[in-house]
Every structure is written in C-alpha cells, then in structure tokens.
C-alpha cells in the first residue's frame, strides 16, 4: 500500500476543566488512503469532533501528531478543509464571495478563485445562485455552499463534522447521494463524522467506531458495498447487516457510559 494521505500516531488530547484533567482522546493511530471515504461513529462524548479539530490544526494535541502527505499538521488552512455542522456562511457575503474565502485568505489570484468557485458551485447544484445571499437559501442549499467553499479552498482532505445533522430527513438523504457523487467526481479524501450509522455505512469505504471517553478506536468496519450507491441500497439486507453490526458495537458503548455515569452520580450522592 502506498503512503497514506492522512496519518495520525498516538494522538492524545486532554482538557483542563475545574482543575481536573479530562482525557478526551487516547492514542489514536489511523491511516487513511488517498481518495478514501472514512466515517467516524461513536456515542456522544467520544471525541469525534475533537479528533477532526486536532487533524485540522484548530487545536493542538496533548501528544502525538497528524500528517498529511508526510507533512506534520501545525496550523489550519492549506491541505485540509473543514466542513462544519453549522454552515458558518458569512451573512453579508454572496454565495460566490463565501465560496472563495479560502483562496482569498491565502492571498491567491481572485479571478482564478472565482472561476474555481463557480465550477464547484455548479458541481454542488447551485449554478445561478452565485449572487444570492445565505439568508435567501434553504438549509440544504447552505450546506452545499459550505461544501463548495471547502472544495474551492483547494484542499485534498475534507473533514466533515456532521454536516447534515441540522437538515430534515429527506434533505439529508438527498445530500448523502450528492456527497458521494461529488466525492467520486473530485477524488478527495474525506473523513466524515456522524451520529447516524446508516449515513456512515452508505457513504463510506470504512467506518471507524470510537469508544466513549477517552475516545479510542474500538473497531473498524470495511464497507464492501458496490459503488456507485443509490438510496435503494439502504433497503438491502447486506446494508442492514452492516448497520446492525455497528449499532451493536455502539450500543455496548452507550450502555457502558450510561452505567458509569449512573454509578458516578450515586457515588457522588453518597459522599
């Protein structure tokens, strides 16, 4: 296998809170190949989002490192783009001006950036909306702009933090198929965080299941379903089998964490 696009070694993160140190992530070793689509699922509080923020360089690891193409990540920008759960579009900018923010901040040629942004806006299905303002768009359309913005930034790696969580169920399904199409047309490497197991299975080549705090890799599930994938795939038994398997892994985790939280609360009450 060739060198991985994205690699993390012994990535750990602890936060200080009220004088106590809370370990959020412990010793994550993950390799993601170029052009691979990998999802992370796990119960709430498993540090999925923290993991993305570490890889992006938005926060610094307590120990360990992340590399893109063999180069260590030290600051945001450049090779990685982050797609947030909230679209985070600047409300005073048009769709096009939002999409070009990456090249603009990097001081790149704005003419080229505009052409690039226009073509990516067309790719995400927003041709003709360049001059609209975010408040004139629906939630799904805003997330499309969010994606076009990440693509225009020219990054090879897209980190996506529950980008469809705020959308209604039908829009979400459409956006999932759109994302697989965009991914296959652009050949980007995607690391996708979600709560929804079926979303993870539908989109991914591989699903990483995280344990609850501290977050560790519990198991990885390779999804051997043919591509291109249609929404009808979700009703097939082999799809259901993957979802079941991952849900069982997480279910244990969720029960464990609820039990632990209950015990801790009881212990605190006795004191």
């Amino acid at each position, binding site marked *: 296998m060739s060198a991985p696009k994205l690699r993390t070694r012994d990535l750990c993160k602890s936060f200080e809170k009220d004088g106590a140190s809370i370990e959020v992530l412990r010793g994550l070793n993950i390799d993601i190949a170029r052009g691979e689509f990998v999802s992370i699922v796990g119960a709430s509080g498993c540090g999925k989002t923290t993991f993305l923020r570490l890889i*992006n360089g*938005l926060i610094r690891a307590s120990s360990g490192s992340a590399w893109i193409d063999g180069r260590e990540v030290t*600051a*945001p*920008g*450049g090779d990685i*783009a*982050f797609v*947030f759960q*909230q679209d*985070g579009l*600047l*409300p*005073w900018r048009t769709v096009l001006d939002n999409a070009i*923010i*990456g090249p*603009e*901040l*990097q001081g790149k040629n704005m003419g080229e950036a505009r052409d690039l942004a226009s073509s990516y806006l067309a790719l995400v299905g927003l041709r003709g909306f360049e001059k609209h*303002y*975010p*408040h004139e768009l629906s939630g799904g359309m805003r997330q499309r702009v969010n994606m076009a913005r990440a693509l225009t*930034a020219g990054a090879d790696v897209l980190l996506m933090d529950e980008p469809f969580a705020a959308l209604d169920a039908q829009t979400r399904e459409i956006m999932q198929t759109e994302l697989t199409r965009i991914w296959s047309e652009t050949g980007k490497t995607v690391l996708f965080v979600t709560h929804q197991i079926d979303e993870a299975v539908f989109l991914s080549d591989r699903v990483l299941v995280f344990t609850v705090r501290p977050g560790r890799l519990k198991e990885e599930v390779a999804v051997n379903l043919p591509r291109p994938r249609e929404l009808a795939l979700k009703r097939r038994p082999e799809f259901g089998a993957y979802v079941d398997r991952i849900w069982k892994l997480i279910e244990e985790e969720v029960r464990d964490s609820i039990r632990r939280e209950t015990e801790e609360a009881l212990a605190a009450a006795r004191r």
Partner: protein
Amino acid sequence: MSFGVAAILWEAVAWWLDNKLFLVRLGAIGERFVELIQSGELIADMRVSFIEFAGGFGLAIVVGIGAGVIMAASRRVRDLFDPWVSMLYATPTIALGPLFMLAFGIGYTSKIALVFLTCVFPILINTLAGLKTTDRTLLEVVRSYGATPRQIYFKVRIPSALPFIIAGLRVSVARALVGVVVAELFGARAGLGFLIFRSAQSFDTAGLFVAVFILAICGVACVEFLKWIEIRLAPWRFNNMDEE
C-alpha cells in the same frame, strides 16, 4: 394618514382654544415659516444648527467608532476605560452645557463639544458590543481556512459589527439633535434652538413651532435614512420580521 388626522385634530383644538399663546393654527405656522425664510433668519439659523450638529455628530462617529475598535482589540484599554464609559453614558452630560459655555464661549466650539459628548457614548458602546459578539461559528470557520488575526478582524469582526454600529448611530442622531437645541438654549447668537428661545421670549408661538417642526423632520429623516442603510447592510437581520 395618521398625520392627516393629527393635523385636523390640531386645527380643531387650536380653533376651540382660540389661544395664540398656547396653540396656533397650522396656517399661522406656515405663514411664519414663509416670513422667516424671506427675512433670511431661518436659513441662517438652520445653517448654524447644521454646522453644530454635523461637527459634533461627525466627531462622535470618528471618535466613538475609533475608541470602540481600540477597546475591543485591547483588553487593557477596555479594563481602563469601561467604568468611565458606563458612567458617562448614564450621566446626562447635557447638564454640563453651562460649563461648556464658560470654557469655550458661545460660538461653535462649545456647541460642538456638547453635541459630541451627548452622542459619542451610544456609538462607542454599540461598536464595542458589535465587535465583541461575533458569531463563534464564523470565527472558527475563517480560522479553519487559515485566517490571520488581522484578517479575522477585517473580514469577520468589523462587517458583523456594522449593523450594531449603525444602530448606535440611530440612537445618537436623536441625542445629537437634543444636544444642538439645548446647547443653544444655554446661550447662542443663532440656531434653531436659539430661534425657539427667541420666539418664546417674544411670545411668538408660531415661530417656536417652525423650529420644532424643522427639527422633528430632520430627526425623522436621519433615523429613517440610517434604518434604510441598516437594512441594506444587514438584510438577514430583518428577514424574520417580514415573514410575520
């Protein structure tokens, strides 16, 4: 529509009272307006008041926004000046008028200083609040695309503070007009406030109302203009209201 009803009511009450000291007919105010224009008095008064207003308000915009930006950028400056700003904002600084007359004379300087002082704080406070309440998501997004602190300031913080700043200007406009009138009441040689003073001294109620109406029209025009700018600058903030 409601202005029309008010005008009819006004006329009715004026006719019923038949007291030229308290309430005069609108027609009489109109006549006085024409007289004052023809004698050149009104134009001169308006010119003086306009200079006082523009000078004080303009200075307040520059200083208020400037100081707000500096205070938002530096915690130390903020800690040093915040108590003073809060205190002076709550103080009716207009009461310092007589002191200003003594210090700066009855010319433009004292008026401009007083107008400046009455309206600088709302501008400053709104600028500061606007810069401090930037949406965290937006900050994180531009940071994730590699924005420098300088870029974050100019591309996110300032644009997102603009509607706040305009709102501050809207509050200040009204205060500035009050400042002009009151400053002139304390002592002046010309101006709309002085016209009010003069008219009251000579029982010229119509002349007094001419000045009051001109001030009211100017105030409404300024506020409406700023509201229009605010909607143009930040249409997303008014969207929800339209839907109701």
